[in-house]
Structures are given as structure tokens and as C-alpha cells.
């Protein structure tokens, strides 16, 4: 195994709000090896977006990184000058957002936008355009040269998202972060994008951090998966292990709740009883204990740590 592209250790981030200190991320540890696709799953409010924002240093002004480090190719991103950070974004780290309609500029053509982002290269415009067309071709867009003259609204949703992917990969980043990139698409296009991403990842060799709450997409695309709950990582490991033999009760329940897994049509879908804990007033011990059905005495006092080697979970009850 090579050195991880991204190595996050003990990352803790909190938000200052009227209600006090909201501890949105607590002791996050994760590594991404080069060329791996890692999925992050978890419910809204579990800290997925905060984690991404912390990596690319686009946290809201009221957020504070309390401790920890985010090493990208052995440089701590959290200590970088804003100028140096800007140099990394869109070059070595790029991002694909959920809604391509809002991440593309509606009043500039695809070709203009794709040459704009090559501002770092000192090359003639014709070459930049040719490069953009080649990139569009690689994401499977037919007639790439003609498409360069079109505006985002001329394209279908699936095409727009592929344009966004083409733009993100154009600088051959070492890390691509994708935040729910298939949410707005139907299943046929979703699968198309996933397979395209898989292929591109093999060609470019970049690592991908893929955030989604669609469990099926994660299962199909990712090598490894990280399950987050209320600001903590509760389980991580190879996708196959986590989905087939979940260790943490939360992961198990999350999978049980997925309507795709319930074969017989039911009007009474399973839910996880209880609500998310208040991040401003965290319970002692295990964060999931109030909703857990297998908790033991120790769970109320001692916070479990993430243990277990390749497939680890933060649970006192789970078999290591």
C-alpha cells in the first residue's frame, strides 16, 4: 500500500451558534489511499458536508477547527496559507457538486467555462478548447466539439453532470470529492454516471471521496465505506464487509431501513426509533446509545473508540 493521499487524524470541528458550541465533527480519523473510491454514508446532519468543507477549507465563518490535521500528500491543509490552498483547489483536489445546474455558469458556454478553468496553463486558446473537447469525449458526451458552443440549459441533467465531472478531472487531480452527484438523476442515468466514474478513476488513478445517502450507489461504486453518525465515524471498512456483515448497530439499522432491501411490499416501513442527539449537549458514553437496542451498562459511561483493523467499528458490543 502506498502513502495515503489524504490522511485525516483526530479532526474535531465545532460551530458557534446561539445555542452554544455545536460539536459537528468529533475525532474523525480516516485515510484515503491513492486510486481508491471511498464512500461516506450517513443521515443529514451527521457531518458529511462539514467534513468535506473542512478538507477543502470552505467551512462557514462560524466554524472552528478545534484540533486535528488533514494531511494531503503529507502537507497539512489546515495550516496552509489561503493563497496556497487556492492553488490546490481545482488543481490537485477537485469537486463535483450535487446540482450541476447551479455549479455551472448559466450565461457562459460549456467551452468558455472549460477554458476558464485552465487559467493556470499558458497555452493557446485553441489548444485549451481541443483539450476540453477531448475531456468531454472521455465522459461520453457525443459530438464534443459542437457541445462546447452550447449553454448549460441546452444539455440534459445527465449531460450537465458529466460536464461537471469532465471539468473536475481536467486538471488530473489526485483527489476528487463528489457530493451526492447523482441525486437529481433517474436510475438509468445514475448507473451511467457511476460506471463512468469507475472507468475514469481507473484511467486517471485519482482517489475519489464519494458522499451519498443512497446506500445502493455506495455499494455499487465504492471500494471502502465510512459510516457516520452525529459527527462521528461509527464504522468503516471494505464496502463488501460493511454491507454484508455490519458491526455497528447503527449501520445494521440503516441497512434494515432501506426499502430496497424489503422484499415484500409493506405499508409499515422500519425506522430507527428516537432522534439524533443534540450536538450542543452530547450524551455521555456512546453517541448512539439512546437509540440502540443492544446497549450495555458500559455504553452510558465510556465512549467507544473506533477499533478492529480493516473493518472497524466504534461499539462496545460489536464483535471486534
Amino acid at each position, binding site marked *: 500500500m502506498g502513502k495515503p493521499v489524504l490522511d485525516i487524524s483526530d479532526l474535531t470541528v465545532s460551530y458557534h451558534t446561539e445555542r452554544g458550541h455545536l460539536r459537528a465533527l468529533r475525532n474523525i480519523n480516516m485515510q484515503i489511499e491513492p486510486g481508491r473510491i471511498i464512500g461516506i454514508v*450517513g*443521515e*443529514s*446532519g451527521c457531518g458529511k458536508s462539514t467534513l468535506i468543507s473542512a478538507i477543502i477549507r470552505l467551512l462557514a465563518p462560524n466554524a472552528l477547527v478545534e484540533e486535528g490535521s488533514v494531511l494531503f500528500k503529507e502537507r497539512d491543509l489546515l495550516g496552509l496559507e489561503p493563497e496556497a490552498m487556492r492553488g490546490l483547489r481545482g488543481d490537485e483536489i477537485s469537486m463535483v457538486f450535487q446540482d450541476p445546474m447551479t455549479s455551472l455558469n448559466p450565461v457562459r458556454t460549456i467551452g468558455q467555462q472549460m477554458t476558464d478553468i485552465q487559467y493556470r496553463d499558458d497555452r493557446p486558446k485553441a489548444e485549451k478548447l481541443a483539450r476540453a473537447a477531448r475531456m468531454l469525449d472521455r465522459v461520453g458526451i*457525443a459530438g464534443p466539439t459542437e457541445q462546447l458552443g452550447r449553454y448549460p440549459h*441546452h444539455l*440534459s*441533467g*445527465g*449531460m450537465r453532470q458529466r460536464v461537471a465531472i469532465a471539468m473536475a478531472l481536467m486538471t488530473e487531480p489526485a483527489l476528487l470529492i463528489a457530493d451526492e452527484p447523482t*441525486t*437529481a*438523476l*433517474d*436510475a*438509468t*442515468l*445514475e*448507473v*451511467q454516471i*457511476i460506471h463512468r466514474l469507475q472507468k475514469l478513476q481507473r484511467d486517471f488513478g485519482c482517489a475519489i471521496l464519494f458522499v451519498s*445517502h*443512497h*446506500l*445502493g*450507489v455506495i*455499494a*455499487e461504486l465504492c471500494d471502502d465505506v465510512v459510516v457516520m453518525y452525529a459527527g462521528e465515524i461509527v464504522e468503516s471498512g471494505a*464496502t*463488501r464487509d460493511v*454491507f*454484508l456483515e455490519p458491526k455497528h448497530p447503527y449501520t445494521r*439499522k*440503516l*441497512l434494515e*431501513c*432501506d*426499502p*430496497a*432491501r*424489503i422484499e415484500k*411490499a*409493506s*405499508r*409499515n*416501513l*422500519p*425506522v*430507527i426509533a428516537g432522534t*439524533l442527539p443534540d450536538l450542543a449537549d452530547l450524551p455521555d458514553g456512546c453517541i448512539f446509545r439512546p437509540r440502540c437496542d443492544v446497549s450495555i451498562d458500559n455504553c452510558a459511561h465510556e465512549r467507544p473508540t473506533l477499533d478492529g483493523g480493516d473493518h472497524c467499528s466504534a461499539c462496545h458490543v460489536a464483535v471486534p
Partner: protein
Amino acid sequence: MSALLKVRDLRVRYPVDVGITSMLNRNRRSYVDVVHGVSLDIERGETLAVVGESGSGKTTLAMALCGLVPIMDGDVRFDGEVLPRNKDGNLQIDRRRVALMFQDPVGSLSPRMTVRKLLGEPFRIHAGLSDDPDRSALELLSMVGLSSDFANRYPHQLSGGQARRVGLARALAQKPDLLIADEPTAGLDVSIQGEVLNLLSDLQQELGLGIMIITHNLNIVRHVAEQMAIMYLGRFVEQGLSELVFRHPRHPYTAALLAANPSTNPDAVPERIDLTGEVPSLLQRPVGCEFNNRCLRAQAECREKFPAREILNGKHVWNCFHPLPGESL
């Protein structure tokens, strides 16, 4: 007994002004047909799920039925009576009897009103629904499973699932007969999604609501809807009993959609149907069947004319010249 909502050949068209020439040349305006001849029936106590990708016209269909956008053509009957249209072409539906649950849960609630005020608003607008709007608001709150603590919160203090519940409570304030829910679970996690859907089912049983649910999540359709319709570029290409459609999809688009649904079993070997080609633009609606450029079964005739609807036992309808084989009768 007649259906609660009966729609025949509904059409909605939006004008598109492309550049200055079309502004100067009024009689050469171009249009997009967003809803292109949709027919459906919804019975009391029954749920119809409308499935399709973003941009296929689902939300426009919902808005048209609620009278929020003008329709071009179509016959819409609610509870047996033909709905009139106003001078702009909007359907004039009794808003007390049809409720719409909007797609964006927080965006559809006024940020400056507390939950108590938001829930009391329908009672203040439709006088006669309640003598005591405040008490009725609290009753609604408990009906959707939120404690009275929530009454004094503002929308930004609610989570996605809670905001959805408030949206649902507001929709149910006037005791409607029909509820149109636009993506009621989009952006929700599986657990909260289950809560919202269970709540809808319970309230449906209790109040005998007819529900039209708009979604692009196939996984939930099987569980919540007796009837389903697959929408593609403004048309229903297939519709019928959900059970039948899932078991024997006849339209190639439906088949591809069902086969594409990613499974949470990492060992699953999906039998995918690989579609090629792009989704056509509504500005240039293809001649013939709209799916022909992506369809693996398309023949010459599919590029010439739109296939007539085929009906099986009145329970399963599709528009395709070369449907997949179905059940032997």
C-alpha cells in the same frame, strides 16, 4: 363510483423566448410541451406514484392539477365534476379539497413565522374550518407526531424530516380529499423517509385520502403506491398496478429503469440494460416515440409515429410498438 380525480389528455406548454428575434416576431414563438397528454385516475384511499427523472414534467403536472400553472388542453374531473378554467387557463380547483405538499420542505415555510402561526394560517384563510385556530394548530402538530414544543420554533430550527411533517400538517389542515406530495422524501435519510411514508399511509387510512406521490425513488414506490406511472419527457409511457409494472415492465424505459436501480447487496450481479444516447431536449421533441434514440428495441416505425396505448385488462397501460413480453394470460 367515479374516481376522485380523473384526468384525460392533460397538456401543459411553456412558451420559450429564444433571443431577440422571437421577441420581435411574436407569431413565431416556440414552445416546450412539458406535460404532453397525460391521463390518470386516482381513487379515494388510493396512492398513485409518478416516477420519472428531473425534468420529465412531474412537478409541472402537480402544479397544473393544483391550478398553479395554466393548462393548454385536457379534461380534468374532480369528484365527478369537470373543473373549469379561469381566463389564464389555470384549473379552478377547490383548494380546500386538494392539498399540495411542496418539494422543498423548509423553502415552502415562511422563515418569519413560527410553526404555531404556520399551522394556524390555513384556518385563518379558510374561515369556518375551526373556531380556535391555535388549538387546531396544536392538534395538527400532534397528528403528525410532533410535540407541542415545536409550536414556537421557526422553520430554520427544524430538521428536514420535521419540516416535512409541518408541511404535511399544513396540507392536511383543511381536511382535503386529495393530497399531492411532490418528492416528499427527497433529501431524507432512509430512516426518516420511512417515518414520513408511514405517517402518510396512516393518515391515508384514517382520512381516506387519495394521494398522488411524485418521486424518483423506485424503492419506495413498491411499498407505498398501489398504482404507478412512469413519466418520460412529459408523457406517461407506462402506468398500472405497481405490482404488475414491477413484475412485468412492458415499456423498454421502465425495464431499464427497474434494472438500473442500484442494489445495496455488494455481491448482486445486476442484469442491466445498457442504454446509449442522451435524453432528448424538450425543445426538440423527437418525432415518433420519444425514447427511440435510447431504446434497444426501436424499429423504423418508432421513429415515425408515436405508439398508441395498449391496455391489458384495464390494469396495465403502455405506449410501445415493441413492448417486452408480459405475463401469459
